[in-house]
């Protein structure tokens, strides 16, 4: 049985499988031909009826309602139910009739979650719509009715705005979309990402004034919609950054002369947690300078005491410190209260997997007055092995009473395939932990 070409185009459109060429031809025919429009609307009415039937969102009292639009004979109780539904809607809930409430996204796990003072800490369970959630740290996984799931790492801010989409204002996330859940949408201040199947990572940050959004496809395919540009389709292994350059929205594949990369946010492993009280956590850090490059590639020294590890973070909010271009660099942690210390634990950086910066050898010094420094330790710090986890390395030294701990990079890492004098190289560190013993 051969079907009519107009029908084929109409039904391909209704099924969401029409090619751009066929769509253009269909639109032209619909514009020119009233009979084509009549046929389209006939098919579309059946399609709409089927959508309605399957979603069951039409409450039963509607079909029992009189055909006349006069409100007076309308049954009293359903009216109140409908009114309640409208009020719920006004309060920010989805428009759902009581008979068949819309399935909602849920938080399936929350680990080490820290919230700003005064705000409620999210826990496993229903996720409120239209309510922004902010995390200072930790890790949350959200499951959607379609089967799509999103893992988000703090610090972050996000909001559920529609049943099958999530808005991330800030933060790093991994999205997993199994077969049947294609079309899941992630909204960011820089653009929209539609998942056409399987998995991708995203990091939403800024360059100080405009959003900078990094996206990488781990497996499968996504589409990026940014501004007025035609959508960009990315396949497994491809990555792009949405940036603003001289006022123009750009989709670029390299940042800082290196390919855009988003590492997968991972749930915190127990071995990552510090043993003993880390005296450095949250303490101020100063340095003579740090790396500042365009598009939010800014790496101040207090990143080494922020409790965040593994080259995580987003543009303008990274977890690691980098020395200025070409410099080995140094920084000093102020413990505020003098303490007797005998151990540090260090996590190196690979500058988001690029492998062009980091610490090879360092000198550690201590001081009570930030003037006279005494050497505590000189040692090599192993580099991060690409594709492997980010280990912490412990270093012991003679117990010494100090308030200021200075970390001087003696030798820094550089990209193995770039010339020795390439300007993009330098010292760096993810995290320093300082212990009494």
């Amino acid at each position, binding site marked *: 049985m051969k079907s009519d070409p107009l029908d*084929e185009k109409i039904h391909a459109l209704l099924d969401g499988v029409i090619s751009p060429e066929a769509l253009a031809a269909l639109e032209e025919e619909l514009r020119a031909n009233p009979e084509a429009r009549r046929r389209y609307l006939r098919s579309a009415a059946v399609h709409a009826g089927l959508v309605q039937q399957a979603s069951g969102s039409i409450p039963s009292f509607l079909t029992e309602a009189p055909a006349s639009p006069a*409100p007076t004979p309308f049954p009293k109780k359903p*009216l109140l139910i409908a009114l309640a539904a409208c009020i719920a809607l006004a309060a920010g809930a989805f428009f759902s009739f009581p008979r068949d409430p819309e399935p909602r996204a849920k938080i399936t796990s929350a680990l080490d979650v820290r919230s700003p003072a005064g705000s409620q800490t999210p826990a496993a369970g229903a996720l409120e719509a239209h309510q922004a959630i902010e995390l200072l740290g930790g890790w949350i996984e959200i499951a959607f009715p*379609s089967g799509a799931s999103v893992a988000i790492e703090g610090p972050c801010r996000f909001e559920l705005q*529609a049943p099958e989409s999530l808005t991330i204002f800030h933060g790093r996330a991994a999205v997993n979309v199994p077969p049947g859940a294609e079309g899941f949408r992630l909204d960011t201040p820089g653009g929209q990402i539609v998942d056409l199947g399987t998995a991708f990572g995203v990091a939403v940050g800024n360059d100080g004034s405009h959003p900078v959004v990094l996206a990488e496809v781990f497996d499968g395919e996504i589409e990026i919609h940014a501004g007025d540009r035609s959508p960009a389709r990315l396949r497994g292994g491809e990555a792009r950054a949405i940036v603003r350059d001289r006022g123009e929205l750009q989709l670029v594949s390299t940042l800082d002369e290196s390919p855009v990369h988003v590492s997968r946010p991972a749930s915190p492993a127990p071995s990552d947690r510090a043993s003993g009280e880390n005296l450095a956590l949250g303490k101020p850090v100063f340095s003579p300078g740090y790396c500042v490059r365009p598009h939010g590639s800014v790496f101040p020294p207090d990143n080494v005491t922020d409790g965040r590890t593994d080259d995580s973070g987003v543009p303008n909010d990274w977890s690691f410190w980098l020395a200025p271009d070409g410099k080995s660099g140094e920084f000093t942690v102020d413990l505020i209260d003098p303490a007797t210390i005998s151990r540090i634990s260090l996590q190196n950086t690979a500058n988001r997997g690029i492998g062009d910066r980091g610490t090879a050898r360092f000198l550690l010094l201590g001081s009570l007055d930030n003037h006279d420094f005494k050497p505590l330790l000189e040692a090599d710090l192993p580099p991060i092995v690409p594709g492997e986890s980010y280990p912490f390395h412990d270093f012991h030294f003679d117990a010494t009473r100090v308030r200021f701990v200075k970390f001087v990079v003696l030798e820094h890492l550089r990209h193995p395939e770039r010339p020795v004098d390439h300007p993009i190289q330098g010292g760096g560190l993810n995290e320093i932990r300082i212990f009494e013993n």
Partner: protein
Amino acid sequence: MHPKPGNPEETLVALIATHQAAIHRYVHSLLPDRMLADDVVQETNLLLWRKAAEYDPAQPFLPWALTIALYQVKAARRDAARDRHVFDDRLLDLLATDAAAHDARDLESALEHCLAKLPGRQRQLIMERYQPGASVQSMAQERSQTPTALSLTLLRIRKSLESCIEQRLQLLPP
């Protein structure tokens, strides 16, 4: 002033509920993308309710509601991602005029009747296609078919529903 006393919000809610099926069908006809259309229906409901005070009960409700729905469809088109299949404003205006005039009362019950008359396998396939969250792409993948081939199968099922509904509606008194 309204000639009749009573809470305009309550009146509006009753009208929105009565005409929900028509609003739903209108929006889904103009906007084949289901996710977008569902959002637009909800936004339209909300907007209608907010505009309760502006509604003049002396005027027929549905044309007023559909005008607001069309406005929301156009807004969605501007906001929607480029890949989504949405008609441009000029074509939307043409279709909207016809869609508003399209009288499809009783379509629901006729559709239910005709679905029941479909051969079991066809009914199962079409129901699966319209499950919330389902997509022709993933269904085709599961069946090792191309999406286009599956869409052609669905076309035939929907076409037979169309003619069944037409027959059925002709049997009913006007």
